[in-house]
């Protein structure tokens, strides 16, 4: 059981109010809504399947990063390139990298961790899931717990985005997030037990929607 200080810090880093730009991205959801494919009726089922595909991939990298040792920073930077190769769509990949950089800079500044500061000073391409895992590891958080917290934070951001795209109220949004918790726990367990290179992810429609996002006539989100 991690100490209370570590849990409080983790909670702060997982707060959707963390100034890393999460509210500016929809990761393709805006295109799905625009195409009439995503609505309030199928949102919960969509998110459950999203967790099984994209979610498990992200938490596998998050959990693996959580286990990193100081001397393996170059290996971690290589994992970031592997992760980028698995995110084919430019806008979503660039969003993940932009948020990762801001997260890492902030975490390095707040924590005074040598590892985080060295990682931030490298100036290499880093991604949010891996930066979250690396930071959680520095705080002594268990990889599976870090993965679950990261995934819940990601889903909170997506649901919040849907509140701006769909007629989705606060209560319904929280009901959905509440009911997704078993799927989050299962994905975190699977992600923590699986090498990231072995994780499957099948989301062609989401890829197409994300790739079509720059073509939308009016856009609320950057991605």
């Amino acid at each position, binding site marked *: 059981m991690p100490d209370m200080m570590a849990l409080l810090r983790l909670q702060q880093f997982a707060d959707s109010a963390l100034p890393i730009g999460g509210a500016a991205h929809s990761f393709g959801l805006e295109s*799905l809504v625009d*195409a009439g*494919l*995503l609505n309030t009726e*199928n949102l919960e*089922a*969509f*998110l459950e*399947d*999203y967790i*099984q*595909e*994209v979610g498990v991939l992200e938490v596998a990298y998050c959990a693996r990063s959580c286990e990193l040792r100081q001397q393996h920073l170059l290996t971690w930077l290589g994992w970031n*390139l*592997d992760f*980028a*190769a*698995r995110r*084919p*769509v*430019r*806008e979503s*990949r660039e969003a993940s990298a932009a948020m990762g950089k801001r997260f890492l800079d902030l975490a390095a500044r707040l924590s005074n961790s040598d590892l985080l500061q060295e990682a931030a000073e490298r100036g290499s*391409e880093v991604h949010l899931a891996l930066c979250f895992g690396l930071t959680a590891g520095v705080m002594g958080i268990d990889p599976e717990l870090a993965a679950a917290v990261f995934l819940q934070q990601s889903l909170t951001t997506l649901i919040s985005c849907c509140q701006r795209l769909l007629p989705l109220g606060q209560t319904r949004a929280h009901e959905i997030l509440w009911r997704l918790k078993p799927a989050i726990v299962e994905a975190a367990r699977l992600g923590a037990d699986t090498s990231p*290179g*072995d*994780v*499957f*992810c*099948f*989301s*062609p*429609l*989401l*890829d*197409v*929607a*994300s*790739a*079509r996002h*720059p*073509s939308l006539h009016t856009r609320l989100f950057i991605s």
Partner: protein
Amino acid sequence: MQRPAQLHLSFELDARGSTILRVKTQQPPWRVVRGFDAPSGEKLAHVHNVSGGILDTDSLEWRVDVGARAQAQLTSTGATRVYRSRSHDRVATQRAVVTLGEDSYFEYLPDQLIPFAGSRFEQSTRIDLARGASMIWWDLIAPGRDASGELFGYESLSSTFEVCACGEPMATERWNIAPQTQRLDSIARLGPFRYFASCYVCRAGESANYWRALENDLQVIADRRTTADVSWGVTSLRKHGLVVRGVAMSGRSLSDGLVEFWRAAKWILCGRAAALPRKVH
């Protein structure tokens, strides 16, 4: 453990600077007759699977090496049919390794993959591009024998697809489809669509601005071709290339679209007009 059936093709420049095909290894069911001169300048080879399709006892491997400055085009002679597995647990496998030398050019333009009801198939592909190497690679996956009303009746279909340029990963796909246990009509997967396709366009060493410009050019085609029954998107990879993805209700709309993207990309990539490979059947 069954030894895989191997095919090894090497495209090389001869003394006059023309691309020649050397068939270094071919074991049944693989068969390549000879190289043909494609109108656009590449050496064209048709890969036959003389058994007519992939059986659950098959373990297949193919390797293609394209030497420095050589230009090659590879296609199939028809759709790749993956037959129903007759055993309880066997999975047919196919592994491909492609190496592209400096300033080489390679196109892989196969017909669609059709996994029959009850089939299990696992494919993996690894492509390495040296500096200046260019590639256009498409694939199209059907839900089954659509004309017979057979949709997503297969047991499992998995794929690992890795492209590296100058030793660095640029795109990795790794997916598994198990229609009996997954909701394929989920918006997170295929939604209302049944077919899916990708077309990778790559050149190692080309700038990010080049790919953004090509992305914009091809997105015009994607926008024009997107309807209620088919949707296309174009996006730049992290480096060295872009990918066109499509999902559709019918295979024809995807294959027609792939041809148009290929023609446009080839013209911009190397200034040559694309001509569909002549089929020998």
